[in-house]
């Protein structure tokens, strides 16, 4: 049983000129293993900043608050230490790594996360099964990481990593964006398999409610102007589906 605790998190983005622009204005959130949280909000509200600052992207500076995973201070850790501590970020725009094959990348990541190389005997089979489950062609393993992948292929590759690396906490940043309905179904099934293990806490970041028809959240948080402005159960997502964010955005102005 793991717990991710975010307390009064304040984050600024580093601008090219060196200035800091505040984005997160005090975020409080607790996610436990087996729970699925949806963070919903309009574009530019800071949802992705929350995801990337928890993962440790160098573009963001923490200006206040704490993030702990099972009591350990996440903000003190390097990016790779955070991942090895059990955090996972499925990215909205996964990065191409030319010349590095998917097979090599996954094996290196798995070795790093587990602290030992996966057993040669079982690894090839595990990889093949993970790819089959996400309906990825076996030839994918020999392609370079994200190079020439379609939007759907990139997202399936992210979810395949989620299944293989088995993190304690996973943040899924706009995983539904750019997916056609078939790809969305395949990807959602992958997320639901992870969810059903009960071992992983999930934080779904999304603008649209579409993905929530396939992955039912236990909790919904509405995110506006760098903070959570309302919280509820799955019914809140339905309300947003019907009414949109206008009410929240309007209230702010």
């Amino acid at each position, binding site marked *: 049983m793991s717990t991710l605790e975010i307390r009064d998190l304040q984050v600024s983005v580093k601008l090219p000129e060196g200035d800091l622009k505040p984005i997160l204005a005090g975020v409080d959130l607790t996610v436990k293993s087996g729970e699925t949280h949806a963070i919903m909000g309009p574009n530019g509200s800071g949802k992705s900043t929350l995801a990337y600052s928890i*993962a*440790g*992207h*160098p573009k963001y500076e923490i200006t206040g608050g704490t993030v702990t995973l099972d009591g350990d201070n996440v903000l003190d850790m*390097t*990016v*790779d230490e*955070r*991942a*090895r501590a059990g955090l*996972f*970020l499925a*990215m909205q725009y*996964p*990065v*191409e*790594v*030319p*010349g*590095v094959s998917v097979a*090599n*990348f996954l094996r*290196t*990541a798995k070795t*790093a*996360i587990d602290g030992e190389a996966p057993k040669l005997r079982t690894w090839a089979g595990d990889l093949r099964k993970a790819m089959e489950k996400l309906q990825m062609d076996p030839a994918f393993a020999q392609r*370079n*990481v994200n190079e020439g992948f379609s939007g759907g292929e990139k997202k399936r590759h992210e979810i395949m*990593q989620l299944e293989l*690396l088995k993190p304690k906490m996973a943040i899924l940043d706009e995983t539904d964006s750019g997916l056609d309905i078939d790809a969305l179904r395949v990807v959602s099934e992958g997320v639901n398999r992870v969810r059903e293990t009960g071992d992983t806490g999930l934080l779904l970041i999304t603008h649209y409610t579409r993905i929530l028809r396939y992955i039912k959240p236990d909790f919904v948080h509405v995110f506006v102007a760098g903070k959570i402005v309302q919280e509820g159960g799955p019914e809140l997502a339905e309300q947003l589906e019907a009414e949109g964010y206008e009410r929240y955005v309007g209230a702010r102005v």
Partner: protein
Amino acid sequence: MTTEATIAPPSTKSQVLRSFDVAEFPALNGLEEEWRFTPLKRLRELVRATALTGTAPQVEHGDLPAGVSVRSVEKVDPVLTPFDRVSALAFGSAAGVTLIEVAPEAEPEQAVVIRLVGKGGEAAAGRTFVKVGAFAKVTLVLEQTGTTTLADNIEVVVGDSAQLTFVTVADWDADAVQAQHVKLRIGKDARAVHVQVALGGDLVRQFTSVEYTGRGGDAELWGLYFADAGQHFEHRQLVDHSVPDCRSYVGYRGALQGVSAQTVWVGDVLIRAAATGTDTYEINRNLILTDGAVAHSVPNLEIETGEIVGAGHASATGRFDEEQLFYLMARGIPEGEARKLVVRGFFAELLNKIPVEELRERLGDAIEARLAETGA
């Protein structure tokens, strides 16, 4: 003190002075377009000498497959007329020629590996002549190691419809200096894939020129270099398209790390009026791993006919892609290992051009070892 009149640079690459006589070339002063990036002092005697008397690197090889011979001969009709002073100096001073011959239609299964081992001593000149017969298909590897101060020319004749993969590795000791010219003459429907690797040496300057003698010739020039602190690696090419319907592709990639690591890439492609149907592309990419390293990159295209299939060039020099590092580290991979993956990936396409697994692995490992040195 004498004042020399400034010599106007030739208006086109086709007008460059060519001669076997070193005396016909003006003394180098470092201001010449062709030498402006080269630290001339570090070329030692190669700059001023009119003759070189040292011992050229020793030629070594194992058993040769049928159809392949390596021998030392006194004379071979040249296919290169030198167009710089050091190349002419090498021609005039070379004691003999190492002649590597591949018989027509020979197709040895194994790569032919020849080592040139420098034993130090006085500045020396060398000449190597590679003759690949018509319809032959062969992979030749030339490994250059040891220490030397060397000016040398390599002439390569690829016979009609022959296919040559020619890998040269400059992995000299840290104090070695080399100025080399590699000339490729490509026959009708012949194909040459040249992979030029530079890893070791204080200064290595390699000029590769290509000419075609019949239609359908295809030349791919790949380069891989990794310059550490203080090293100067320089690669220049002149691809001279004077025959219709030939193809060339030039792709050089380098990594640099450490103070005063310097690399130069100058790619010249000349498409003459007669060379209709030419298809050419040249690209250079440099990855700067630390502060203090400098990469020069200059593509030049000179086009005298519009009737071509394609002509393009590109050059990109940059630092580590932070987003790539973040992506890999976000999957638990430690920074050092992530950097290794990125650099090995950066060179992977080029390494894969080398059809000799043992060499490919060795070069990959050497590159990773370089990264470990500085913890970059």
